[in-house]
């Protein structure tokens, strides 16, 4: 479904990858290995070269904002541009349900961003991205800073998306988490793809 051919940046050696619909691939490696750069390049947030197609359609054919709504990158550090949480969300009924599924109260919409805890920020940012209903999710450490209960909640929501046919590429430092969600893992090191591993579990 998502085909990546020789994707590269000045700081990242060419990487090829095919992800099928409903497939989840983990990305692991020491810090500075280029995991974030890889996801950002796919979302076209940094200058990059190489060919990417989604359902056979070339990335360059889409205006960048449209591409990013279909192939959505969620950074490790969430960004907020308004004072109130609600200003970062669309005004429709799906928001409350999504927050509920991520273990957040709908009241959170009325709060100011400043009073959110790290974990709340992380889950709200994930909710914001999921509400776009992208075909591919690029998640950069989506559960770092969450407690075990919240991690389980988030993984449940991600698995539901996978079952719907959404593809997920996600960076994690926790191999057990990788194995809970993914069958394949890319190991990056110093800006290049070192090896690809297939996991039997999950």
């Amino acid at each position, binding site marked *: 479904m998502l085909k990546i051919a020789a994707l590269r940046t000045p700081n990242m050696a060419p990487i090829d990858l095919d992800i099928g619909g409903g497939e989840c691939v983990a990305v692991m490696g020491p810090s500075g290995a280029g995991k974030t750069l890889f996801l950002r390049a796919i979302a076209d947030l940094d200058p990059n070269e190489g060919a990417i197609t989604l359902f056979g359609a070339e990335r360059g054919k889409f205006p960048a*904002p449209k591409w*990013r709504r279909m192939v959505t990158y969620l*950074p490790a*550090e*969430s*960004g907020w*541009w308004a004072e109130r949480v609600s200003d970062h969300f669309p005004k429709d009924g799906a928001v409350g349900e999504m927050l509920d599924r991520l273990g957040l109260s709908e009241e959170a919409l009325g709060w100011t961003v400043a009073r959110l805890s790290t974990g709340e920020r992380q889950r709200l940012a994930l909710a914001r991205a999921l509400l776009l209903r992208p075909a591919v999710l690029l998640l950069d450490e989506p559960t770092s800073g969450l407690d075990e209960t919240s991690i389980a909640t988030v993984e449940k929501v991600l698995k539901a998306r996978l079952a719907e046919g959404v593809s997920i590429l996600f960076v994690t430092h926790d191999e057990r988490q990788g194995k809970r969600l993914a069958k394949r893992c890319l190991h990056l090191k110093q800006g290049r793809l070192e090896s690809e591993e297939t996991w039997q579990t999950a």
Partner: protein
Amino acid sequence: MADGIIALSYGDLVLASLLILLNAGLSFILRLRLEGQLLIAALRMVAQLFLVGLVLKALFAIVSPYLTGLVALAMVLFAGREILARQERRLAGWWTYGLGTTSMLMAAMIVTVLALTTQLQPDPWYHPRYAIPILGMILGNTMTGIALGLNTLATTIGRERVAIEARLALGQTWREAFGGVIREAMRSGLIPIVNAMAATGLVSLPGMMTGQILAGAEPMHAIEYQILIMFLIAGGTGLGVLSAVLGGAYRLTDSRQRLRLDRLHRTEEG
């Protein structure tokens, strides 16, 4: 008009310069260590003004459109350097100087030529006695506005990187993602002239108007000139800030609507 002027002799100036020596003396006694800088600045001012006086005298005698244009261009280029010097964080390469200078050139020229050909109409319209002082006043204020606007743009975009990229990653256009920063940059460039207009006459008597009054002009004449000048300055600043800030914002994105912080000059903190 000239009848009302009380001409100064060099002796008068020397007498007034005793005040600078007094300041230098105070600085020495109080160990402010400013006396050197103070004296050099005072000497620079005297030398620069003498030179400007000679240049203007020659220009007024010749009344050549080319020479006037050349002096105007030199003023714009110096102002461009001043914009560059006022940046905490600037665009990589020549972009800040280029954007600042071209925006200023465009804005100040449009407004100055407009004033000379419609409201003032000296004969000829490019007469340096009118063109140079008016350009100077517009340039000085437009320069401040552009310097503030560009500086705010660069520092705010650097600071708001995470928020801007969050919006871009969610599929918002660069116009939506940059909108808040662009507005803030434009506001910071325009606030000084808004404040200056609000305070004029109550808190401050503008230098130009004071000068005309000292030169014997009717106060009502002087204020009319001042009002015209303030409108010209506001117009020039508005145009200049708009084009410089938008140009800078365009430079910090690209055809794929990314945030291109790599096009900002690196600072120590990254």
